C-alpha cells in the first residue's frame, strides 16, 4: 500500500464530517472546500510524523483542519476595524433571515453573524477552551466571552422550542 493509499483509507471516512466542520466554522461551503483541500494537503505532508496510527488519525486530522480554518478567519477578520461589543446591539442575525422558532440547531447557529458563529462553533463543536479560541482568532479573551454571552442569549430564544418538542415527544 502506498502512503497515499494508507492516508486515504484513514481520511475518507472522516471527510464528510471534516467538510461540515469547516463549513460550520467558516460559514459557507465554498470556503469550506478551500479549507478542506488546504488542510488535507498539509495533513498528507505531515502524515509520516503522525504517532499512534489509525486511532490517532481522526483527532489529528481535525486539529489540522481547525487550525487551517482559524488561520483563514484570522486573515479575514484582519481587515475589519476593531469593533466595540456595543456596536453589535441588535444585529447578531443577518437582517433578512427569519429564524424558525424551535428550529434546527444548525439553522439557528448558521444565521448568526460570522463573528458570533465562529466562537459558538469553536466552543460547542470543537470544545475549545475560551483562551484557545482567543489565541486562534487573535482576539482578546474578553471579546470571546462577551460574544459568546450575547450569542447564547440570542440562540436561547430560538432553541427553546426545540427542547420543549423533544421532551413532549418522549
Amino acid at each position: 500500500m502506498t502512503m497515499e493509499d494508507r492516508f486515504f483509507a484513514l481520511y475518507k471516512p472522516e471527510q464528510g464530517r471534516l467538510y461540515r466542520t469547516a463549513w460550520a466554522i467558516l460559514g459557507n461551503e465554498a470556503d469550506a472546500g478551500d479549507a478542506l483541500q488546504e488542510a488535507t494537503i498539509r495533513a498528507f505532508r505531515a502524515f509520516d510524523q503522525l504517532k499512534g496510527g489509525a486511532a490517532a488519525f481522526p483527532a489529528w486530522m481535525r486539529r489540522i483542519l481547525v487550525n487551517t480554518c482559524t488561520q483563514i478567519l484570522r486573515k479575514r477578520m484582519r481587515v475589519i476595524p476593531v469593533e466595540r461589543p456595543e456596536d453589535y446591539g441588535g444585529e447578531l442575525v443577518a437582517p433578512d433571515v427569519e429564524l424558525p422558532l424551535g428550529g434546527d440547531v444548525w439553522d439557528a447557529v448558521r444565521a448568526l453573524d460570522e463573528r458570533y458563529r465562529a466562537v459558538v462553533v469553536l466552543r460547542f463543536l470543537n470544545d475549545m477552551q475560551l483562551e484557545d479560541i482567543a489565541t486562534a482568532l487573535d482576539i482578546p479573551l474578553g471579546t470571546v466571552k462577551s460574544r459568546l454571552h450575547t450569542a447564547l442569549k440570542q440562540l436561547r430564544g430560538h432553541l427553546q422550542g426545540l427542547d420543549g418538542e423533544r421532551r413532549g415527544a418522549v
Partner: protein
Amino acid sequence: MQCERVQKELESYLQGTVTPEERAEINAHLSTCAVCSEEATAVKELGQTLRRGLHAWIDQGECPPQLARQIELSIRQGARRPWWRRTWSVYAGASVAAAAVLMIVMWQQPDVAERMASVPLVGAIAAQFISPDLEVQFDPLTPVNTALMQPTRTVAVDGTAEAQGMKLTVEKFEVSPQLTRVRYFVRGLMLIPEIDPLTYQPELSAKDGPVRLRGFNADQRDQGVVFQAYFDPVGSGQALTFTLDRLPVSQAISGRWALQPNGQVDARELPAAGQWQRNGSKVTVTLNWSDPNVLRLTEWTATDSAGKEYAVAEVGRPAYADGAWTQTLTIEAPETASGLELRSSRMENRVIGPWTATFTSP
C-alpha cells in the same frame, strides 16, 4: 459578586477555567441568587443542546464528490513529482547575492536517503539529512552540517515578528568557530516545492554588513515550517538583525475565466486576462497578469456550458518578462465543446514581509 459579572463568567465557570477564588465567589453567589442559579442551569442546558445539535449535523455530512475528487487528485499527482532535483553550477567564493545555487536537494519521502546514498558526492550529505523537505547548500565540497557546530555558544532568542498573517519566531541562535546557526519557525507557511528554493532564504546582518549565508534547510510541520540557516561565524556580543524579506505562499482562491468566442479570455474574479486558440483537439490558453508577486495559478479544472469536465494541463511554469507574467495551459476538449470556462483553486504568490528579529550574539 454582581449578577452581571457572574453571568458573564458562566461559560468559563462551566468549563472549569476560572481561578479557585472566582469559583468560590461564583458558588457563593449561586447558592443565594435564584436568578443566576436558573441562568446557570439554562446556559448549561443550552450548551448541551448546541453540542448535540452541531455534532448531529456534522455526522450527517458528506463531502461533495467533485471536491473529494479534486482533493484526491491534487495529492496523488503531487506525490508523483520527481523526488529530487540536483543543480550544479560553477562557484567562486559563492556569495548570497549570486543567483547560481550550487546544490539543491529536495525530497518528500523518508526512504529517499537510501537512494541518495548511491549518488556520488551527495551521499555524505544524504546520510546526515534524512528528514528535511528542502535543503540548500552553497558549497557542495564543504557542506554545512551539525559536525561543524562544535563547540557551541547558544543564546535563547526572544525574537518574533508578524506580518501578513504569518509569524516568525527565532528559536535558537548558536555560534561555533566554524558556523552560526539560526533555528526559526514560520507559523502559517506551507512550502511550495516546485519554486526556486532561494525564495525562502534569510538574511543576517551585523553592524558592519551582511553575514554570508552558507546553507539552509526546511521542514514542513502542520502549523508552519521549521528552518535552520547556517551563516559564517560571528564574534561575540554583536548586535544582529535577522530578516525574511518575502515568502512564497500557496493560498486557496476561486478564480474563473471564460473563453469568449472572439478568442479572448475574460477574468471573472482575478485580474488576469489572455487569449485562447484551438489546435485540433486541444485548446491552448495564454494568461497574462502584471502583479509581480503572483507567481502561478494552479489546480485547474475546465467545464463547458453543459457542466462536462475536461482535463487541463499547465505548460511549464509561468514566465516573467517585460513587466508581466505569462502562463500557458492546454485544455483537452473536442471542437463540439462550447462555453468553456476555466477555474483555478490555488494561487502561489509572494507575501512581502519583512519579518525581522534582532538580538545579540553570545
